């Protein structure tokens, strides 16, 4: 690794940090725009003006917004996530288990879809123009063009309503056996896998097709290399960066998908928590969930960019 790469990576990380600041600023002030006074909401309609004023002072609501922002940011950084308005519980408490649940869902989906998507994407690129390629491409376009909830409802219709393999909606909080685990995860994972695999196949195929069109792959052909060798030795090593980049970017689609999927399947994850928080206007909870999502998203896209930098052979 040389200094040029280090400085590029460092710059990218710096950009990520600046972006995170801007994002947290946006999240904080967007939720600050909530109509109505928080103290009044908390105390209910019967509250006396004195009680409201007292609570306002206690919650530092009279401080300038920028001061509250800094305090909030400091709290986030030190792990003090604040208290939920809706049920007076510490947010870290509410989030803990839910966060793990969402991570589990994401991990199972990734494990399931990454190998399938890569295989389909690379083989489609290799057999470009064939019937197989056209079928794969058409299906991916179809999946990308429909909303996630439609993929989910279709999965329910197929697997639960017609085939009756799985329950329509899964909510079991306690999983005792592998069978139950499968039942809880199956529908959300199938839905999410469809959504992110489609993205990944599309990007992987594009990356491999691009390297297959380069003069050095033609040169390999003119050296008498077999098709296998052209792909494995010449195209793939150069497409590796773009492919890993595609994986990281596709995984960021998990975040959008997970909101719909957790809602529709009633899955006890962090996205469901956030959608519920929006319904009850639980400000600190929304802020924290939003920050977790942004952080995850930013992490993935930064990772994708850094991989792109590292994989450029010309910087070696």
């Amino acid at each position, binding site marked *: 690794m040389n200094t040029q790469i280090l400085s590029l990576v460092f710059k990218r990380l710096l950009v990520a940090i600046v972006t995170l600041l801007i994002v947290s600023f946006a999240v904080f002030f967007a939720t600050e725009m909530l109509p109505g006074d928080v103290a009044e909401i908390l105390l209910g309609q019967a509250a006396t003006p004195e009680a409201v004023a007292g609570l306002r002072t206690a919650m530092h609501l009279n401080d300038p917004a920028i001061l509250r922002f800094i305090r909030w940011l400091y709290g986030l950084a030190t792990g003090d996530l604040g208290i939920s308005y809706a049920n007076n519980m510490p947010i870290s408490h509410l989030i803990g288990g839910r966060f793990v649940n969402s991570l589990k869902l994401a991990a199972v989906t990734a494990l399931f879809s990454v190998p399938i998507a890569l295989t389909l994407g690379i083989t489609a690129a290799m057999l470009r123009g064939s019937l197989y390629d056209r079928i794969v491409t058409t299906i991916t376009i179809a999946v990308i063009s429909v909303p996630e909830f439609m993929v989910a409802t279709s999965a329910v219709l197929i697997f639960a309503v017609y085939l009756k393999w799985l329950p329509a909606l899964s909510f079991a909080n306690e999983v005792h056996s592998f069978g139950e685990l499968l039942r809880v995860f199956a529908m959300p994972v199938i839905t999410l896998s469809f959504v992110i695999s489609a993205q990944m196949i599309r990007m992987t195929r594009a990356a491999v097709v691009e390297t297959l069109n*380069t*003069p*050095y792959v*033609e*040169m*390999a*052909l*003119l*050296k*008498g*290399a*077999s098709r296998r*060798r052209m792909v494995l*030795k*010449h195209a793939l*090593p*150069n497409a590796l960066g773009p492919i890993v980049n595609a994986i990281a970017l596709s995984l960021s689609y998990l975040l959008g998908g997970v909101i719909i999927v957790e809602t529709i399947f009633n899955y006890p994850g962090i996205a469901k928590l956030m959608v519920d928080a929006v319904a009850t206007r639980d400000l600190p909870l929304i802020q924290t969930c939003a920050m977790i999502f942004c952080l995850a998203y930013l992490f993935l896209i930064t990772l994708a960019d850094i991989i792109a930098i590292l994989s450029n*052979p*010309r910087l*070696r």
Partner: protein
Amino acid sequence: MANLVEIRDLKVEAKTDSGRTVEIIRGVSFDIAEGEIVALIGESGSGKTTIALTLMGYARAGCRISKGSVLFADKDMAAISEKSRASMRGTKVAYVPQSAAAAFNPAQTIMEQVIEVARIHKLMPMDEARVRAVDLFRALALPNPDTIGSRYPHQVSGGQLQRLSAAMALIGNPKLVIFDEPTTALDVTTQIEVLRAFKSVMKKKGIGGVYVSHDLAVVAQIADRILVLKNGEVQEIGTTAQILSAPKHPYTRELLGAFKPASYASHVKAADASSKVPILEVHDVVAGYGPLKSNGQPTILALKSVNLKLEQGRNLGIIGESGCGKSTLARVIAGILPPFSGSVCFDGKELSADARGRTRDELRKLQIVFQFADTALNPAKSISDIVGRPLAFYHGMGGGDREARIDQLLDMVHLPRALKHRQPSELSGGQKQRVNLARALAAEPQLILCDEITSALDTVVAAAIIDLLKELQRELGLSYVFISHDLSVVQAICDEIAVMYAGEKVAQMPPSAMGSQDSHPYSRLLFSSVPKLDPAWLDSLERDPELVRAFSKL
């Protein structure tokens, strides 16, 4: 001697965008004897690369061999299975690409790719292949032959990569090597070493070759026979000596004619001009690119204190190899790149460094024409809009006046008026360059900066453009600053030639003094490196190794 290759009535078809099939090679037949080097020469689109690739049984995407046979060592490359073709590629017939930089896989070391042919065809143990490769590196006069293989392609220069790609072709001991314009992308001083290396290896090993090129002088040095192509048809086949000295076909004569431009001097003599104020003066210009350093200088300096002077009605040529700063100089004069220090005076008046600070009249008098007519014309506009814009902008012309003037301008550059409503993409390269000139003329300038305007054109077309420039000068009393890497073009039109090297003007002289013993060593080297139409030129050329080492980028 038996014929190694026999091509009979070869036809290749290509599919166009609209799905129509067009014949791009129309019945070509020729032979190559064992150990013979045959050159395919012609302009772009003549089908020379397509023919060369059929020798490997290969046609690029969208093309297909439709008829005829390509017998290579008694096997028809057009008819045998893909598997047997693959077994011939690299072992019997090998390929040296035009751009070696693109043909090397950036993710593998050079050695790995050079010996790949041996690995694919299991020709020899890998250790033996490596030893052989190093021998080839040495034979091709590459520096550090023992270690160069462990580098990655982006770590070596273009001239070296070109020779490394020849090593890659030769490792499998082929009977025939196809060279596809292998020196076109190189500077002239580099080209010589590469050509010499190719020639000596080919002769020593008695390997046959097909040398594809548009440059007759280069081909004259290496080929035994020359095949002249146009529009996918053979115009003439003959030995190198016969083609050069006694061409039969009119097209061959035209090619040769374009190669020997009559030397030219503008009608204004130096003595008359010196009394007047110079039209262009450049004083101590320093300019470059990249982030600024603490003293305000750019990090990459492209020009280090350049001075120039040009009198009204005369032409100044600026020559130098890629990266010498000649195009940067044009940009500084045109106000596109403001210099760090120094000044540009036009007609005795100092111009603002940035075009935005110049008056409309100052801008009008100084026009610039670029190398690539493809990118210099807005593809979304019609020819009349492109030529008409300066008329509206500088002269406030509109309506019928403007239309009439556009017609006049098209006449001046010898383009049919019917082209007015076409888009640039519907024009040929030479036509586009004429539109490019017409746009500059529309401003009614006094000085035109020509930045490599003939470099992307075929020889015959380029010669016609030069003739047009001369004619316009006689009629309109223009001055040109003519920037080029091609010495013969500059000689054809300029009164004075400035030689640039590494951001500095190293010499300035009239064309007649080029290459004389008392000129600057670099200009001597540059001048002596330009290939001549004499087949014995390369072998008899003696260059001072000190000089080569000092100035060339090998």
